[in-house]
């Protein structure tokens, strides 16, 4: 019987079928952080259980870590420091590989795993973090899980997985100048809604996806969860295989055989999808969120929609509430809206290509003096690379803060937090109420748009800025 790529990956990792809905799914790699794993280790300890396969696990300190631009990092907050030391102790006790606070390769889990060659096509990857969908960019099936499930994975290297339905999203055409993968995924989420893909694993296909770099594909798969998707996948092509081959020298001996298998990782031609949607990349403009859910975005040249015109009473209520929180009115223009902060970072948009894009937009211009603009690279490797390319020096000269890697103000678990009422142009993934700080106002956008906002002091159309720039 013909199968989708998702079904093939479930089949190839199925230890046991548990019932009609559930399978016991094997995890090739389990990533852990300091804040969703402690209670799982405590649970193991209570049961007196070992970690079944410590070497199929990797841990990293990323969520609570301070990002001050100091070479040696000290976690001042006692509770956070305890989370970090607790993770190190647990890893040592169980023999789990760790990227600790001051490891030069430390970074956001979803940035370091692919860049260090841990993610390989056809894998199942689990992590106590919802953005584990990122790995679909390499044809690996990634699921975010809760802490009880983290404990289950540590004990058994498996997950009780409720099998999802299949959705295929086709993207035809190519993105226009000034538009990026971030704009494309915001466009898709705005169209299908914050629960439009709930219950599905989404496979992205089409020219608009094939034309993207692996890093851009990660941005798409990363944010699929903001449409509620259980997982995201892009069948590995030459671009993806090249990316992995270049980063995983330890598997050199097996590479020809691996590549032969990776090329088969695609949905059968006649595979049946429960839902098929299609979009055209040509329709995508640079987008900005206007509300408090990632599905509330518009192209920069459109105005804030009127809640009265929303589809359902619930959406109307939600939009009204969102506008009240964000301090905007229906019909307002986002273009020209003054901002206080710019945050360039997160597992969505803090890779080297993102920083190159920012540097390109900034050129020799300066950050508007009214704006505090932070760049938090996704990893130590990204930071080093940007420094080697001269990007860091250029951005520091422009007035950006050049910081150490971590999750930082994407979720503001460390001391990078918005003050009440502050408005932020952010390259992150969630504009939820209070996400970046109580009463903070988040506008999600691409790194290029965030760079343009930093220079202009307000949200602006990056295409206008680009054309006005005398190079």
């Amino acid at each position, binding site marked *: 019987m013909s199968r989708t790529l998702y079904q093939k990956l479930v089949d190839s990792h199925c230890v*046991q079928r548990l019932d009609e809905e559930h399978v016991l799914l094997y995890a090739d790699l389990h990533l852990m952080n300091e804040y969703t794993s402690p209670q799982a280790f405590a649970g193991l300890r209570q049961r007196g259980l070992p970690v079944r396969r410590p070497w199929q696990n990797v841990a990293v300190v990323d969520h609570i870590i301070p990002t001050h631009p100091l070479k040696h990092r000290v976690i001042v907050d006692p509770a956070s420091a305890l989370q970090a030391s607790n993770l190190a102790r647990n890893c040592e006790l169980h023999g789990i590989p760790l990227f600790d606070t001051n490891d030069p390769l430390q970074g956001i889990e979803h940035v370091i795993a692919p860049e260090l060659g841990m993610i390989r096509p056809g894998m199942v990857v689990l992590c106590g973090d919802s953005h584990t969908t990122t790995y679909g960019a390499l044809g690996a099936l990634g699921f975010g899980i809760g802490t009880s499930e983290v404990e289950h994975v540590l004990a058994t290297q498996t997950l009780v997985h409720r099998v999802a339905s299949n959705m295929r999203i086709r993207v035809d055409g190519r993105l226009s100048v000034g538009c990026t993968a971030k704009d494309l995924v915001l466009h898709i989420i705005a169209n299908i809604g914050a629960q439009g893909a709930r219950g599905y694993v989404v496979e992205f296909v089409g020219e608009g996806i094939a034309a993207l770099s692996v890093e851009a594909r990660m941005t798409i798969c990363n944010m699929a969860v903001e449409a509620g998707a259980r997982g995201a996948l892009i069948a590995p092509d030459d671009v993806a295989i090249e990316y992995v081959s270049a980063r995983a020298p330890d598997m050199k001996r097996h590479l020809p055989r691996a590549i032969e298998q990776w090329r088969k990782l695609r949905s059968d031609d006649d595979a049946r999808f429960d839902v098929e949607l299609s979009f055209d990349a040509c329709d995508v403009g640079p987008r900005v969120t206007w509300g408090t*859910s990632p599905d509330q975005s518009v192209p920069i040249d459109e105005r804030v929609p009127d809640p009265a015109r929303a589809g359902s009473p619930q959406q109307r209520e939600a939009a009204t509430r969102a506008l009240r929180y964000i301090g905007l009115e229906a019909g307002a223009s986002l273009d020209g809206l003054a901002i206080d902060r710019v945050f360039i970072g997160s597992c969505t948009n803090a890779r080297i290509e993102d920083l190159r894009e920012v540097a390109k937009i900034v050129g020799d211009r300066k950050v508007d003096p009214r704006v505090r603009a932070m760049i938090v690279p996704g990893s130590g490797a990204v930071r080093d690379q940007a420094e080697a390319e001269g990007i860091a020096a250029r951005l520091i000269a422009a007035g950006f803060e050049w910081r150490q890697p971590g999750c930082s103000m994407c979720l503001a678990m460390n001391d990078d937090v918005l003050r009440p009422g502050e408005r932020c142009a952010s390259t992150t993934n969630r504009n939820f109420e209070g996400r970046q700080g109580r009463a903070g106002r988040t506008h999600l956008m691409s790194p290029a748009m965030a760079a343009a906002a930093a220079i202009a002091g307000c949200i602006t159309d990056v295409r206008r800025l680009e054309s006005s720039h005398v190079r």
Partner: protein
Amino acid sequence: MSADTSIAGVAAALPIPNLDTDQIMPKQFLRGIDKAGLDRGVLYDLRFDANGAPRSDFVLNQPEYAGCRILVAEQNFGCGSSREHAVWGLVQLGIRAVIAPSFGEIFYSNAMNNGLLLIVVAQLDVDRFMNDVRNPATNRIDIDVARLQVRSRTHLAKFAMSARHRQMFLDGLDLVGASLASVEAIAAFERKHWEEQPWLQSVGAMVRARVC
């Protein structure tokens, strides 16, 4: 875990679609290495003002809703972050069940793993329940897990629950224990899997050793 087949008590309406886990359990409550004290964090910005004083206009702070055991919520409740702290906090606050048209998927699994009953009913049913519980005089809901039905003052709805979730809720099924019973099947799977794809064996340790 509870062996009760019924949950009855005061219910409160949370008419906010896409109520995400960041709002259910804000970041400042995620810094523990245990599960203690999370009841304080539940819906913190909605329940407390910037000075930490209870907001009297929020439903859970009103005397008629004291001891609330059931929440009636909107679509996609618990979307966003995977943080299980959201579920732990709700349970610690005394919430036994949440009724909504849909739930975020990771939240759904987390709830099932902690005996928090999630009930999916149609939007129209939710509207009716909300209507009833918004009135303090009619804010009781009865949930019968054996019969799979929810009843408010003026409305009754049936709900579905998979056999596995029913067992997890009623018997407190221990998933780790159950899966460990399959340890031989896991070992057999690993042998075959690593023979077919040797580059996946010990991938974490291999990468860590390579980049040291």
